[in-house]
């Protein structure tokens, strides 16, 4: 019973956070609501005894991705107002379609098919059960092939990001620190021997 109350509270919070992400005006607020959404979904995963995934979600998404995201957003100072211009205009049509979809999906994804009597509650694991250990034991054995493909996907993402953003500008004047550090005294100073000038000459 307590489980259910906690779940519904978290689920409601998650839906609230999710809808705030797409409706608030300020992009920084939207990002912060996304952080809230990540936290609540992590908590739901904890209820499912998937503690490794929950912690990874918080560490990776909240700790790294969202911080980076916020950082970029504050640096770029994007004005989102023009992007949202159509929101009110498309809301009636979009909202209607969304409501219809929700209604149709509610008919199917309800207690009739997904009720708790159809899916019995899984047995609780013992206290010394480690979700992390279980994941680790299959990740590089049973699932090594999908794991490698996921690695290739990340590599493609890196290649694509660099290919799309790297611009080589050969004529730009920029400091080259490695050359500055490696410079030697002989490169810069030239000692010239000169005959001494006569005193008093004009």
């Amino acid at each position, binding site marked *: 019973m307590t489980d259910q109350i906690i779940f519904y509270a978290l689920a409601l919070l998650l839906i609230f956070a999710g809808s705030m992400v797409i409706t608030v005006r300020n992009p920084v607020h939207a990002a912060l609501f996304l952080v809230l959404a990540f936290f609540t979904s992590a908590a739901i995963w904890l209820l499912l005894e998937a503690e490794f995934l929950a912690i990874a979600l918080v560490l990776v998404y909240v700790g790294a991705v969202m911080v980076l995201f916020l950082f970029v957003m504050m640096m770029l100072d994007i004005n989102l107002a023009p992007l949202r211009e159509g929101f009110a205009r498309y809301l009636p049509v979009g909202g209607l379609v969304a409501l219809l979809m929700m209604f149709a999906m509610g008919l199917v994804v309800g207690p009739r*098919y997904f009720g708790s009597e159809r899916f019995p509650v899984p047995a609780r694991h013992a206290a010394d059960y480690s979700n992390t250990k279980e994941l680790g034991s299959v990740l590089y054995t*049973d699932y090594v092939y999908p794991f490698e493909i996921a690695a290739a*996907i990340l590599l*493609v993402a890196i290649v694509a990001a660099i290919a*799309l953003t790297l611009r080589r500008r050969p004529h730009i004047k920029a400091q080259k620190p490695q050359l500055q550090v490696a410079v030697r005294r002989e490169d810069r100073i030239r000692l010239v021997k000169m005959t001494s000038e006569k005193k008093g000459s004009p």
Partner: protein
Amino acid sequence: MIFDIAPAAPEIFVLGMACVVLIVEAYHNEPSHALVYWLAQVTLLGAAVLTLYFGPEQTVLAFNDIFVSDPMSALLKVAVCVVTFVVFLYSRTYLREHDLLKGEYFVLGLFAVLGMMVLISAHNLLTIYLGLELLSLSLYAMVALHRDSESASEAAMKYFVLSALASGMLLYGISILYGVTGNLDLARVSLIITEQTEPNTLLIFGLVFVIVGVAFKLGAVPFHMWIPDVYQGAPTSVTLFISTAPKLAAFAMAIRLLVDGLGGLIGSWQDMLIILSFLSMAAGNIIAIAQSNIKRMLAYSTIAHVGFLLLGILSGTLAGYSSAMFYVIVYALMTTAAFGMVILLSRSGFESDRLDDFKGLAQQSQWFAFVMLIVMFSLAGVPPFVGFWGKWFVLKEVIDAGIVWLAAFAVIFTVIGAFYYLRIVKLMYFDKADTDRSITSSHEMRFVISVNGLAILALGLAPGLLMSLCVAALSA
């Protein structure tokens, strides 16, 4: 043995070589990118040879049943490698003349090929999704690679957003299927579905989302919105790539998901595919008439051909799947030649993507006008070219399956569609050229496109050869 990796040798080879090409590209920075190009081509040929060498007589599972290697996967992988080889060859000419030559094109192309191979050999819902993402991610980047072009950026953005939405739909469908069956393995999902006594609404609910994902990747109406914009906006070399090899992979994905995994639900997906197929043939053939840009026209032609491809799948028999496979391979061959001709006629600073650019081609180059004539006749489905046989086999299966009205509509739409293919032939042979044009392409490009065109003719004269391969591939 848990790690029997030999069946996946082509995939491993492509992954390894893609990384090698990436490093070579980074350190061996020459403007012509000849080394990168040849390494990529060798990789594709090597992958085709490895596929044939390890090509099994019957179905072999590897990696804890996540990976499947069967005659169908072998044939499709070889087709993907050969088509991509030709695509790279055409693209190089285009990229060089339009000053877009970058090593990343070939690197991303190789990763896309890897994604296609993963998709073709998928035996698990997880690998289907991962293969699809690997393929799509490479394609988005390839579309956007021409950074200074506004239309390319717009096309990439549209493609990315819509495709991400479709991936989300597919993933949702997969999650429902997993929720109901408790399995990701296609064979076990199939087993659980066939064991069910009463129809399960939830499975059909999941199926709908899976179909949306597949239809989007194939480009079937009403999930076709991205195709015309992306085909027109992307550089022709990338359009050429997107429109050919990935369709082979999308076909494999449809077969793996609908037949291997959800074969028990055939009664449900047959009806959905009938709607998709009918709408695709109607919209594709009719809207194509109004186009004045050949890339956009070929985009709508793709949509129409996807409708035909779905006809073969929805007939629900092994013979139907083989006819669809024949169709998709032939389609890839014809589209490669069609976009190849657009590339052949383009030169630096000139795209040659309007229909009017084909005016009077016959007076300037009899031979290439003839090649284009073969391609257009074949796309329209005129005998004896191979496009006719593709349509013939598919229609035969649909009639055998008892859906005669759909076959009748398919023929009507083909006749409507013949108009816009034949219009190009008319422009080439009976109109006067607006501009003086000289074909500046390289000799290898001229040679390969001639071979490509003649292959369409030769396969049309002897269609039994490829068809028997397709039948053998699916009956194992």
